[in-house]
């Protein structure tokens, strides 16, 4: 079994396109959360009274758990296509192995818990 978790950190504005793209490949589910961060951009200047700090930039984390390598690649492709602009801030995708998945409702595990 090669369950994969695909975790993308993307622009909030790209969410709609990403969900549409994932829909087109018939994905099983998605979990989305609000994060802040920076990669190469190092943040944006922020003032508070006379102090200057660097503000992190708002991003969305999109997690898609896939039942195998192929599915993961499809998901990655879909996300990249939906969000790539070629400019800084397009985001990153992290892929990890999952040991196990359980669907609480049915108790199913592994691939069956996803599809």
């Amino acid at each position, binding site marked *: 079994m090669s369950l994969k978790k695909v975790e993308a950190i993307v*622009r*909030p*504005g790209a969410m709609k*396109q990403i969900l549409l793209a994932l829909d087109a490949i018939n994905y099983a589910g998605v979990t989305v959360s609000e994060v802040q961060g920076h990669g190469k951009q190092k943040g*944006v*200047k*922020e003032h*508070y009274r006379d102090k200057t700090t660097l503000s992190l930039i*708002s991003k969305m984390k999109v997690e898609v758990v896939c039942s195998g390598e192929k599915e993961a690649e499809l998901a990655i492709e879909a996300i990249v296509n939906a969000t790539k602009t070629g400019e800084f*801030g397009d985001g990153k995708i992290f892929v990890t192995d999952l040991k196990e998945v359980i669907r609480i409702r049915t108790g199913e595990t592994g691939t069956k818990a996803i599809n």
Partner: protein
Amino acid sequence: MTSTGKIRLGALAASCLLPALAFAEEAAAPAVPKLDTGDTAWILVSCAMVLLMTPGLALFYAGMVRKKNVLSTMMQSMFMMGLISLIWVWYGYSLAFSPGHSMGGFIGNFDFLWLNGVSSSTASPLAPTIPHLVYMAFQMMFAIITVALISGSVADRFKFSAWVAFAILWSTLVYNPVAHWVWSPNGFLLAKGALDFAGGTVVHIISGVSALTACLILGPRKGHGKENMLPHNMTYVLLGTGLLWFGWFGFNAGSALGANGIAAVAFVNTNTAAASAALLWSLIEWVRNGKPSALGFASGAVAGLVVITPAAGFVSVQSAAIMGLLVSLVCYGAIFLKEKLGYDDSLDAFGVHGVGGTLGAILTGVFASSAVNPVVTKTGWALVMVQLEAVGWSWLIAVVGTFVLLKLVDAIFGAKVAPREEELGLDLTQHSENGYEI
């Protein structure tokens, strides 16, 4: 052309001439009305209530934008409480309301510069029972919010420096002249006989139409049509609606310029139109989408408040209810059309204020009744034609003025932020702040 001011004056004249409407017996001698503490109290409060509409509007707009633009949206409105306030006491009130002319009647002169001659102990002829200074303050609050209203169509992309420059120019060269022609005692439009009780033309048409012009010039938001741009906090929209509704009583019933029967009429009509418009908008959504939304309720309420503004002291309560119904139909349609036409009036400043204000001006012609307010002398087609003429002039001034001034500002400052700034949000890029810190 419109002669709103006449009507404001008229409302007062009425209260002097008609014993039935006059509370104080001494007003029966119309020659020298005295300052009245009750009238003054009501207008002082109305001033404060109309001032509060600007933070209310800021909240109403702020709830509708995305998180990253929440402060810039509030600042586009609330900054006017500083900017226009100062301009108004400096030269704005003078240019709008001075008895003297300049540039052949296009605008007033500097007689009232720094409120020179605007007395705290005697009245203006425009409001015979309250100190002139109170009348000036009441007018100031209108000048503030009118500019703030425009910001709704251009939210999320107007560079702040450019916005400030545009606001100064627009208030000076569009708002002040229109107010002068329409409301100053010698404004050349005063004679036309058009009715505008509380600023449907001066406030809502010109701000709404300028909003449309401005958003066409600026172009759409980055990602418009491709991204979801949902209101980030609908509770703000609802609370903002509540504050606007509250403040609008000062706006409309305060425009009676006294605590009199016409104020009562305007108060009740304001509430009724807001109510029926909010209900119908909800109903339309219920039928079309299966559910009535909070945004629809709020939009309807504001549309109702807009449409009744020119008519508040002139029409019966049934007419107010009908005007509320009609404005929801028409504004809902306008916003629907916007989607088809594809221009990006982000928060529907034109769709509600421009369209609703225009409809209100016309319907005032249809529904104004001398039984309600004796200053209504013309009615029927005759009045509607005058109203249409007023509408036409307002549209013309708003479109041309906004076009010229915004192009100028754009040439100097660049009116629109860079795409990367738009992406990061205007809070960070225009104000170096985040609305919310985690």
